[in-house]
């Protein structure tokens, strides 16, 4: 029983003290999961993290499920996940109540419109970073451009587009590795 409680409390803390998710979470995971509770080794955590990035869903949740599952099976996975999402649920619920109570005020409206500009700035730099990581050659650029154009100018749903992108990636990877194989031979 205590293990379940530990899992919940630990992941609750990790959810509470990380801003932005993703890599911001690694130092906390290191302290809680590796050093304090010895639930996994550093290599395992890095593996989970890498896999969490290429499986659907929120990376933090994927990592929590992995470690919870490793410690205590399916129930462990679920409890770790509930732990990591609970702080968000509580905090955001409070903030939503605040915003909906005050959003009619003119001064708040002005502030929110200013904040929208800040979001434009933050998204600008976020996309820049993602481009640097994701677009590394002509092939990946073509996929990026096709994805942008198709999602902007057609009615295809994002779900369909994600599936198409996965297929395109698989084809690209196969062609590329064949070429490499050919050159070596």
């Amino acid at each position: 029983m205590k293990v379940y409680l530990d899992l919940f409390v630990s992941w609750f803390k990790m959810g509470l003290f990380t801003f932005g998710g993703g890599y911001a979470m690694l130092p906390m995971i290191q302290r809680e999961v590796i050093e304090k509770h010895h639930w996994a080794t550093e290599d395992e955590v890095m593996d989970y993290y890498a896999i969490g990035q290429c499986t659907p869903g929120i990376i933090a949740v994927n990592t929590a499920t992995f470690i919870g599952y490793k410690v205590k099976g399916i129930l462990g996975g679920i409890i770790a996940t509930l732990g990591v999402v609970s702080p968000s649920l509580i905090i955001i619920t409070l903030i939503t109540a605040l915003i909906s109570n005050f959003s009619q005020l003119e001064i708040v409206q002005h502030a929110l419109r200013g904040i929208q500009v800040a979001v434009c700035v933050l998204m600008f730099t976020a996309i820049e970073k993602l481009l640097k990581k994701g677009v590394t050659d002509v092939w990946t650029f073509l996929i990026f451009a096709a994805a942008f154009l198709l999602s902007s100018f057609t009615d295809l749903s994002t779900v369909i587009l994600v599936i198409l992108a996965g297929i395109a990636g698989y084809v690209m990877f196969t062609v590329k590795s064949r070429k490499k194989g050919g050159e070596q031979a």
Partner: protein
Amino acid sequence: MSTFFLMCWEFFKTGLFAVGGGLATIPFLQEMSAKYGWFTVQDLSTMIAVSESTPGPIGINMATYIGNHMFGFLGGTAATLSLVAPSVIVIIIIAGMLERFRDSKAVKGVFEGLRPAVVGFILTAVVSIYVSSLLFVDAWKASGSIADLFNWKALLLFAALLAFYKWKSKVHPVMIIFIAALCGMIFAF
């Protein structure tokens, strides 16, 4: 009631297909806003700002915010659980064949295609946020004059903040949001 289940289903789909972290959920949310009108693009922008300035994974924050926005606390909880359910299921399946999954060439290939594509999808969603925050499309359509299209105040603030953020890259995003809120109040955006 049926809208409630539809919302849960949409978040379940988002959780199942948003690969690559929190920002990857934004295109799905923008699609939800365009398709059902549950919230506006401005709401989406506010949600991003709230998520960036509170702890916790961005995707979870957005789901909680939208669920709350639509159906109160119960909605926030249901949206969040719907979003994480596919992850939990997929990971539990994968955990049993960790090594095979990690070393699989097919998985690697699929992911190499998804990574740049997701950037393209996010860019599309972000363009719609830019249009709603920096331009006055309605005023332009009404008057037909191109001068009415640009929200000069917002564009100026955008340029200034971007320059500042580039110059001081260590500044926390919350600081940028805070400065922008102040400017919005002072200059009556």
